[in-house]
C-alpha cells in the first residue's frame, strides 16, 4: 500500500518534469522572438541584442533549460511578455476564482449525476429512465461553448435570473458551474445507473428488502456506497477535464480565473504565461489523480487490504 503510493508520487514528479520540458521546447518552435516583442518597434538591432542577453536567450539551449528548471524549483515561472510582470503572482491571484468554479462544477455534476442516475436505475426501462438517458446523452455530446451561450441566452439575457458575467456573489457562479458540470453530470448519471443496476441485482440487496427496510434506505444506505467507488476515481480525472474546460467557460462568462488568463495569453502568444498555466494545470491533474488514489482505500476496504 505505502509502496503503491510512493510509486505514484515518483510518477507524478516525472510527469511534471516531462511537462516542463515540453512547454519549454514550445518556446523554441515558435517563430516569434521574445526579445523583438519586448523591445518594441522603435528598437535598434543593438537593443534587441541587449535584451536577448538580459533574458539569457543567447546561451545554449541546454543551459537555458537548466536555468529554467532551476528557476521553477524556486517558484519562478518567468515574466510575462505582454503584462511585463512575474507570472506566478498572476496565476496565484487568479487561482482561487478557478478553484471556486471547479469546486462548484464538481458539486453540481456529482449532485445532478447521482440524483438522475439513481432515479433512472430505480425506474429502469420507464419513461423517466429513458428521458434521463436521453438528456445525459445530449449533455455528454454538447460542446461547452454551445452550452455556455445557450445558458447565457436563456437564463441571463432572456429570463434575467442570473447575471450575464462577472464574479463576486453565489449567483455569479451558477451558470459557469452548470456549463462545466453538464458534461460530467451526463457521464455520472450513466455510470451511476449501470453501477446501481448491477448492485441492485445482488443478493444482499434482496436480503435488505426482505428485512423490511424501506426502499429509500435500501437504495441510499446499502446499494449506493458500493456504486460510489468508480465515481471517486472519476472526480480525480474530472479535475483535469475541468482544467481544459475552464478556458472556454471563463472566457465566455468573464470569470477572472486562470482559464481567462490562458485564453488571453494564447491570443497574444505570451509564452511564459502559457507555460505557467500549463504547468499549474498539469500539477492540478496530477494532484487530482493522486488524491483519488489516496482516498480510494478509505472508501473501499477491499483496496485497503491489498
Amino acid at each position, binding site marked *: 500500500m505505502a509502496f503503491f503510493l510512493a510509486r505514484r508520487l515518483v510518477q507524478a514528479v516525472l510527469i511534471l518534469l516531462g511537462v516542463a520540458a515540453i512547454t519549454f521546447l514550445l518556446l523554441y518552435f*515558435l*517563430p*516569434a*522572438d521574445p*526579445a*523583438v*516583442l*519586448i*523591445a*518594441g*518597434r*522603435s*528598437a*535598434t*538591432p*543593438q*537593443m*534587441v541584442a*541587449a*535584451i536577448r*542577453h*538580459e*533574458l539569457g536567450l543567447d546561451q545554449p539551449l541546454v543551459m537555458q533549460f537548466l536555468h529554467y528548471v532551476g528557476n521553477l524549483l524556486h517558484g519562478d515561472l518567468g515574466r*510575462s511578455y*505582454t*503584462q*511585463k*510582470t*512575474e507570472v506566478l*503572482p*498572476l496565476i496565484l*491571484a*487568479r487561482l482561487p*476564482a478557478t478553484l471556486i468554479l471547479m469546486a462548484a462544477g464538481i458539486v453540481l455534476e456529482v449532485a445532478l449525476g447521482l440524483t438522475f442516475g439513481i432515479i433512472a436505475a430505480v425506474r429502469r426501462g420507464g419513461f423517466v429512465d429513458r428521458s434521463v438517458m436521453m438528456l445525459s446523452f445530449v449533455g455528454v455530446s454538447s460542446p461547452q461553448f454551445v452550452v455556455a451561450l445557450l445558458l447565457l441566452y436563456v437564463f441571463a439575457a432572456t429570463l434575467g435570473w442570473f447575471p*450575464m*458575467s*462577472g*464574479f463576486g456573489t453565489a449567483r455569479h457562479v451558477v451558470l459557469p458551474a452548470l456549463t462545466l458540470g453538464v458534461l460530467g453530470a451526463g457521464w455520472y448519471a450513466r455510470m451511476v445507473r449501470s453501477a446501481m443496476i448491477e448492485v441492485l441485482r445482488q443478493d444482499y440487496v434482496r436480503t435488505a428488502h426482505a428485512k423490511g427496510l424501506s426502499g429509500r434506505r435500501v437504495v441510499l444506505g446499502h446499494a449506493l456506497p458500493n456504486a460510489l467507488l468508480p465515481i471517486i476515481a472519476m472526480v480525480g480525472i474530472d479535475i483535469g477535464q475541468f482544467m481544459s474546460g475552464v478556458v472556454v467557460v471563463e472566457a*465566455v462568462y*468573464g*470569470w*477572472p*480565473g486562470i482559464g*481567462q*488568463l490562458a485564453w*488571453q495569453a494564447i*491570443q*497574444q*502568444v505570451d509564452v511564459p504565461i502559457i507555460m505557467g498555466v500549463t504547468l499549474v494545470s498539469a500539477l492540478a491533474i496530477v494532484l487530482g489523480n493522486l488524491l483519488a488514489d489516496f482516498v480510494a482505500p478509505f472508501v473501499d476496504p477491499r483496496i485497503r487490504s491489498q
Partner: protein
Amino acid sequence: MNKFVKQIGLAALLATSALMPARLAFADTPTNGGDIIVTYKDDIATLDPAIGYDWQNWSMINALFSRLVDYKPGTTELGPSLADSYDVSDDGKVYTFKLHPGVKFTNGRAVTAADVKWSIERAVNPKTQGPGAGFFHSIVGADKMTAGTADTMEGITAIDDHTVKFTLSQPDATFLNVLALNFASVVPKEAVEAAGGDFGKHPVGSGAFTLKEWTIGQRLVFQKNPDYFIKDRPHVDSFTIEIGQEPLVALLRLQKGEVDIAGDGIPPAKYLEMKKSPEFEGMIVDRQQLETSYVTLNTQVKPFDNAKVRQAVNMAINKDRIVRIINGRATPASQVLPPLMPGYDQNYKGYAYDPEKAKALLAEAGLKDGFSTQIYTSNTDPQPRITQAIQQDLAAIGVKAEIKAVANPNVIAAGGTQGQAPMVWSGGLGWIADFPDPSDFYGPILGCGSAVAGGWNWSWYCNKDIDARGQAADAMPVPAKAEERNKVWAQIFTDIQTNDAPWIPVFNERRVVAKAKRMGGPDEIYIDPTRVINYEAIYVNK
C-alpha cells in the same frame, strides 16, 4: 469661459477643423466630482511608464505620472507641464528646462532635476527592457547606454534641483514630442527600487491620479491626487477599471447606467445598428486617430523588387469595398500619413482603383499572366476577412495571393525576417503614431535603419536619397521652421508613394468608445489623439 476651456476649444478646432464640423458641445464648464466605471475585456498590462506600451495602459500611465512637457487635452499641441519653461540653444542641440516649484511625488518627496535624469536613463537602460529606449537616441550617451557599456547618460545634467539640461548629438525636431511620451515620465528612484522589479504593479508618480487598488483580473481603482500641481484638474474623484467584461455585456451595462465608459467600444458586427439607434444618441464617440492600415510590399522579394509591380497592385485594391467590410469604421487612405498628421497632403490622390491600368502595368513589367505570392495577416477578426477582399482584388489582375493568417507576434516575426513575407497586411498591428510628428511614420517603418532583422520596416524599403532628406528635415529648428519642415516631410512621403510605392495604404481606421450620457466634455478628450481616454480632462455632468 475659463482658461482650460478656451485652450482645448481653440486647439481642438485647429487640429481637426479640416475633418470635423465645429462643435459647441464643449463650451460647458467642467464640473468636479464623481466616481466613474470603465470596462475592458483584457487584463491591464504593467503601469510602469518605462515599459507600458499598449492602447489600454497608455492613458492610465499618462494619468499616473507627469512629464516635462505635455499635450493640451484633446489636441496635438505641446505645452509646458512639469517644466514651467524651457530654452533651446541656437544650434538646436541644447535644451534647458526649469521645473515647476513645489511638485511632489505622491509618496511626499519633492520632484527634482535628478529624478528627471534618473527616470530617462532608466527608460533607456537595456536592463529595464523598455520598448521606448529608441526614442531617446539623439541624447548624447544614449548609444553607450543601450549598448550596456554605461550606467548614466552624459547628455542629461541636473544643474541644480530645479534645472535639467539635455545635450543632443544632432538637432532633433521631434525631441519635445519625445519628452512628452510616457517613457519620459518622472518616477521616484526609491519607489522603483522598493517595488523590486514590479514597479508596474505598484506605481508612484506625480500625476493627476494615484493607484489605490489593483485586484488582478478584476479591477483597478485610480483616485484623484489632491496635490496635483495643475490646478482644477483632474475633475473626477476616481475612476475604476473593471476587467474581463465582454464588449457586448459592457454595452448592455452601459445602457442600464452601471458603466460610464465601455473601453473596447462597439464590436464591428453591432456598430451600424447602434450608430443608427436613437437609444445610443450622444453615447458613441467615433474619431480619427493617427493611424494608417496598409499592406507592405517587400522590395527585396520578387516580383515586388520592381516598382511597376508595386504600383500595379496599388491600383488593384478596391479600398471602398474594404471599408464597407468593417462597416464604414474607416476612411480609404491615399498616402502613408493619416489625415490628422502634420504633413498630410490633402491634394495628393495616390493610386486610384483601376484594375485595367494595373493589368497593363503588370504586362509592362513582363508579368502579363500575373504571378503567385503570399500575404501575411493577423488571425483575429476582422483582419482575415479584409485580407480575403485584398486576395480577391489581386486575383482580378491575375495575382494569386496565398493567405497566411497567424497570431500577431508571428506576423511581426515574419515581417521582420529578411526575404520571408512578400506582403503583410498591417491590420491589428498597424502603425499608430507615438507622437504627432511625420518623422514617426518614416524612420521606424520606412527608413533604412529599420530595414533590419526584427525591424518594423516590412517593405524592407531603403532609399538612401530619401533617408538623407529626412535627416535634413529633422535637423530643421522647431518651432521656428515647423511649417516649412512639415512641407518637406509632406513632399518626402508623396515622393516615396509616387516613385517607389513600398506600401498599399488601405485605410485610416477610426477608434470608437461608448460613454454614458452623464459623461461630459468634447469627443476629443475621450479619444485624445495622443492618449486615447484623457482621464485628467473628462468629467461628469451635474
